[in-house]
């Protein structure tokens, strides 16, 4: 099969694509945002007088300049746009400046005088939960509690022959999209505002900006695509409010492009979590009892913290059928950086713990870890993790068996250990829900038109962050309609031109594009053919859409241009909701994807350095829409998770970032990855499945960490419970004497 080149490919490899941070406009100003000097403080006074007097400064704004709601947040707008009396983390904005150059804006920030009264810094969930802790929000320090119970956990534990308990600690991870937040906000002559800033949900940004600016949504246009990466990190507002306020204040276009340090300071991160799991089995290896407590450090503000905790709770028993389950989670405010949406959405943290438990339990009862998984894994008819009905597939068992085969093959070919190096192999499996879950507004939709110019226009409110949604739209539309890619005009990422499709998140884009086409194509094809009948006089039964237009007797009888010429456009729209379970269980998912990962490691006994030498991912997510895009998501997700496992940690000390850039925050480079990343796409779906291709944006990141951790154990007998696994931890483990002396 010839590989399909992405529609946005040529512009990207030639450097011709204009990202939103590449744009310039006449009379454009440059802006910078002053962030808090302290992680927790009272603002005693704030003077912008000297900054305003600096030549070249055009506007300085503070909380006094926010016309309507001084707050943002996708669900709860608890983060001040510009702080008035209290700052809760070092990313809190206090003022912003627009000036003739970026240097002048930077100098002006230094001239803004803020007097703070530092307050006690709550830099861990433990401190936040202490009785004496200062309250960070009026409602206290607990953002959200979530839980799930099934069966009688105590009785179930009492029947177990073996129980293992472990506390797992996972770090704060940076999205590290290569393009930091930024763009240009343009005040138009008619009083409206055009916001050229990347986001994962243009209509949501429009809504949030509307309530900050006190402007009707219709007067705000969001152009949100393309982006140089996002991974969940640009779903929440970032610099848009400052650019918008300054553009309105000055009447000139305002550009902001955060430096990497500014981005590190103000961007959301993956939630650090502490997860304690206690899991028990009977003498046959059946999982009987599984108790989990999750404590998440959500940082200073809410954003999607509650939903992420809910997701972790839902996935606490993963793809396993367990008689008694008791899961409790709490997401806690601190003065650390804000945690929020990140590819995997709480699944990565909980899966690391769960799959660690599986290997520990297998070792405790002396059976093969693979066999333990096989004994307990869900089957096609089984309910979902919260007891809800889910779309039935055999994905869990399929990825397990695929990974099992790979595991056996690789194990036989394992390179021998050398004097100072040990090799190991490990595996893990997971399931991951797509869409936002039951009880959450999750609308989707699209529009298909035959335009006056003869183009078949297909429009969605999605954004291209690199994931390849444009290639997905092209592949699905050409396949479902029968036309060529040259016939298409794809429109996304502009609220003035697209229908609402919901957010470009939660692995939902591919799925929703496919569902939209199923709904759109019937009516569209019918109308196109009816017009062709009118124009040619042919019977409809002998006509069909083909490359370039309408076909008859094996050739193109009427081009799209001729069909469209002088006629009204044909427009077909659809609006629907992401499919949810018929069982009304809050936040429960319905469509799941499955992954089985086999990792191979080499551990250097002298340096403690771990190298991942092989990574194979088996994914069950329905049919592959675009081979190159699918592979890219799985491989790229896998390496992002490799970084999470071995190197990435946004270190905070007393609420201040200790890692500010890529010199101290390390993401995987080419030397850190196996040259041959491998994957198997399991495309089978049960007969009659009408949910089509599922998204794979997240699944490739979810089960990699536990597979590597289990491979480290296989190599040196060190049970990993804390990520990232630093060389120091490996060396310390060997000092404690965990190393196998006689590894074969």
């Amino acid at each position, binding site marked *: 099969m010839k590989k399909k080149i992405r529609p946005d490919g040529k512009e990207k490899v030639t450097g011709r694509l204009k990202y939103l941070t590449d744009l310039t406009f006449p009379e454009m100003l440059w802006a910078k945002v002053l962030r808090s000097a302290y992680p927790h403080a009272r603002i005693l006074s704030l003077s912008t007088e000297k900054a305003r007097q600096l030549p070249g400064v055009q506007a300085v704004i503070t909380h006094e300049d926010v016309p309507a709601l001084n707050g943002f947040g996708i669900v709860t707008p608890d983060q001040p746009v510009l702080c008035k009396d209290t700052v809760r983390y070092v990313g809190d904005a206090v003022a912003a400046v627009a000036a003739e150059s970026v240097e002048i804006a930077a100098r002006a920030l230094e001239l803004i005088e803020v007097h703070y009264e530092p307050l006690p810094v709550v830099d861990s969930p433990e401190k936040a939960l202490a009785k004496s802790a200062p309250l960070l929000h009026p409602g206290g320090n607990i953002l959200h509690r979530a839980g799930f119970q099934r069966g009688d956990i105590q009785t179930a534990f009492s029947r177990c022959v073996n129980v293992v308990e472990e506390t797992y600690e996972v770090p704060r991870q940076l999205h590290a999209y290569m393009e930091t937040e930024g763009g240009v906000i343009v005040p138009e002559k008619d009083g409206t505002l055009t916001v050229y800033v990347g986001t994962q949900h243009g209509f949501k940004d429009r809504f949030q900006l509307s309530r900050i600016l006190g402007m009707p949504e219709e007067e705000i246009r969001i152009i949100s695509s393309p982006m140089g990466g996002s991974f969940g990190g640009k779903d929440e507002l970032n610099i848009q409010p400052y650019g918008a306020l300054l553009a309105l204040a000055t009447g000139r276009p305002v550009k902001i492009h955060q430096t990497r340090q500014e981005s590190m300071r103000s961007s959301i991160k993956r939630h650090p979590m502490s997860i304690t799991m206690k899991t028990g089995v009977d003498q046959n290896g059946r999982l009987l009892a599984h108790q989990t407590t999750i404590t998440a450090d959500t940082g200073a503000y809410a954003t999607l913290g509650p939903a992420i905790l809910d997701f972790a709770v839902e996935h606490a028993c993963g793809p396993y059928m367990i008689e008694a389950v008791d899961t409790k989670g709490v997401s806690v405010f601190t003065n650390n950086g804000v945690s929020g949406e990140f590819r995997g959405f709480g699944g990565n943290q909980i899966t690391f713990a769960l799959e660690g438990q599986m290997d520990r339990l297998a070792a405790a009862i002396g059976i093969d870890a693979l066999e333990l998984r096989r004994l307990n894994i869900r089957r096609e008819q089984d309910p979902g993790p919260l007891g809800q009905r889910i779309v039935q597939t055999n994905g869990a068992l399929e990825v397990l068996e695929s990974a099992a085969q790979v595991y056996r093959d690789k194990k036989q070919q394992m390179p021998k250990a050398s004097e100072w190096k040990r090799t190991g192999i490990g595996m893990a499996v997971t399931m991951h829900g797509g869409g936002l879950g039951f009880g959450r507004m999750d609308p989707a939709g699209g529009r298909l038109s035959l335009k006056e110019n003869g183009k078949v226009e297909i429009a969605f409110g999605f954004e291209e962050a690199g994931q390849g949604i444009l290639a997905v739209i092209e592949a699905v539309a050409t396949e479902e309609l029968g036309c060529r890619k040259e016939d298409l005009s794809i429109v996304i990422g502009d609220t003035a031109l697209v229908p609402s499709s919901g957010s470009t998140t939660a692995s939902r884009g591919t799925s929703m594009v496919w569902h939209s086409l199923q709904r759109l194509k019937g009516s569209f094809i019918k109308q196109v053919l009816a017009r062709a009948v009118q124009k040619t006089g042919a019977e409809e039964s002998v006509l069909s859409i083909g490359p370039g237009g309408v076909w008859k007797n094996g050739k193109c009888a009427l081009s799209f241009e001729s069909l469209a010429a002088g006629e009204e456009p044909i427009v077909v729209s659809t609006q629907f909701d992401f499919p949810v379970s018929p069982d009304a269980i809050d936040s429960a998912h319905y469509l799941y994807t499955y992954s089985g990962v086999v990792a191979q490691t080499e551990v250097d006994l002298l340096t403690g350095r771990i190298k991942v030498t092989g990574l194979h991912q088996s994914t069950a997510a329905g049919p592959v829409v675009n081979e190159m895009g699918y592979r890219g998501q799985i491989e790229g997700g896998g*390496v992002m998770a490799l970084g999470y496992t071995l190197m990435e940690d946004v270190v905070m000390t007393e609420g201040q970032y200790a890692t500010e850039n*890529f010199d101290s925050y390390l993401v995987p480079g*080419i030397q850190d990855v196996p040259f041959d990343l491998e994957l198997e796409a399991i495309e089978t779906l049960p007969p009659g499945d009408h949910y089509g291709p599922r998204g794979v944006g997240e699944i490739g990141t979810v089960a990699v960490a536990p597979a590597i951790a289990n491979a480290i154990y296989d190599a040196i007998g060190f049970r990993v419970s804390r990520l990232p696994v630093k060389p120091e931890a490996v060396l310390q483990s060997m000092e404690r004497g965990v190393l196998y002396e006689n590894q074969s």
Partner: protein
Amino acid sequence: MKTNPEKAGAGVIGLSFRLNGKPVQLTVPPVIRAVDLIRNELGQTGTKISCGIGRCGACSVLINGKLSVSCLTLAYQLEGASVETVEGLSDQNGVHPIQEAFLEEGGFQCGYCTPGMVMAAKCLLESNPKPSEAAIQEAFSGNLCRCTGYGGIIRSVQRACSS
């Protein structure tokens, strides 16, 4: 940003060099970053800016044939140099074979690191048309990609040198 003539005491210098084969002459403060000069003064935005400290390679260009991070290069250092950016690799007639290989093998996703990757590939393949895995690792050790996991980039380079 256009250069601000009032920039604190910086003064300006006349600067001439070649950009993608064409002579460039301009007057700029000597210590602005080459990446800002290329992007903002010359409007060539194919060269990207990401970390600003020479760790990610998004701003990679060739200066006298040598792969260089333009965020750590100052304007005065370009005097008399031959500078090549991603824009120099393709024209109206088509793309460079390296770019074609990136297209065919999915050597990019978001595309933001891609100009730097393409320049690193060009630098490698001009000196070593059949690089080993170790040589590829070495050549791209200064360029970060967050999307692909490098698999697509490695396959692109391997395709480019086999074609």
